[in-house]
């Protein structure tokens, strides 16, 4: 099919590229909705088994153990062309899944931190996380119906965001809006502006 195939064990880069983008933010802020709005594959969960204790065979507590050994990972794909894709991963909300973030964040182009103006503080952990690791991120303010409209400057001050970090007002249920957030992120991550 015209693809270069490398020999086993060699490091030749295949002629294909998958770009990873993370969608983060507090519980109920719209991460799953955002991935679903833009992804070409749906429903788009993959169940991740928490691995550190094996795969559940040591657990004897039945159903309950099962619910504690899996976490749903939002997973979406946008095909740019054959061999070039964007992958969106919604980060698991709960604190106990922080270790999964490291894995997800590794090699990511950048992240969208979704914020809800009614509880801005919920996105502090995500902002901290990406700032500390130097991962480029933009803040998407998901404008829920009935939520007070905020000026981006207010959000910036409330979150203590540096001037250069883009803030985008968005409605994650709308495709065009999600698209704008993603183009802002890609440009910021690649061009630094």
């Amino acid at each position, binding site marked *: 099919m015209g*693809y270069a195939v*490398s020999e*086993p064990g060699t490091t030749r880069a295949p002629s294909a590229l*998958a*770009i990873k983008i993370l969608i983060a933010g507090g519980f109920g802020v719209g991460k799953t909705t955002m991935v679903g709005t833009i992804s070409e594959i749906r429903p788009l969960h993959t169940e991740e088994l928490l691995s550190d204790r*094996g795969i559940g065979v040591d657990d004897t507590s039945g159903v309950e153990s099962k619910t504690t050994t899996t976490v749903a990972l939002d997973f979406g794909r946008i095909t740019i*062309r054959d061999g070039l894709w964007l992958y969106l*991963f919604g980060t698991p909300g709960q604190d106990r899944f922080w270790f999964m973030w490291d894995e997800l964040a590794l090699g990511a*182009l950048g992240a969208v931190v979704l914020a809800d103006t009614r509880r801005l503080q919920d996105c502090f952990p995500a902002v901290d996380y990406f700032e500390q690791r130097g991962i480029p991120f933009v803040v998407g303010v998901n404008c829920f119906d009935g939520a007070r409209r905020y000026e981006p400057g207010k959000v910036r001050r409330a979150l203590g965001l540096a001037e250069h970090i883009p803030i985008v007002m968005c409605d994650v249920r709308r495709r065009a809006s999600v698209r704008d957030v993603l183009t802002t992120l890609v440009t910021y991550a690649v061009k630094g502006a």
Partner: protein
Amino acid sequence: MTGEDPGPLIRLYGLTGGRARPQGESFDLVAIVVTVGDLPQPSDLLPEHRAVLSLCRRPTPVADVAAHLRLPINITRVILGDLRRDGLISIERPRPVAQTIDERIYREVLDGLRSL
């Protein structure tokens, strides 16, 4: 493999021998997997292994392999590590993301997004 009954966990255990981590060098969730051409498939492959080899004749990211197999990503990674050890697939090594996106790819991504 919906996790509705105890069967799937047993099945998953069979696929991985209970290992949580893949063999060899670690690889990313979106690392590209390619089936190594021209090797005759061993006759004793598990169905999941066969499915990977067939899918990855076209370069396919790890996460997509998991989605196709309907298996958790960790399990998929163990399977992929085994297939790599056996020389049946190659898995792209981690690259700094900045190096992978040149001006042309950047333009392609922006145009692609805008046309959605």
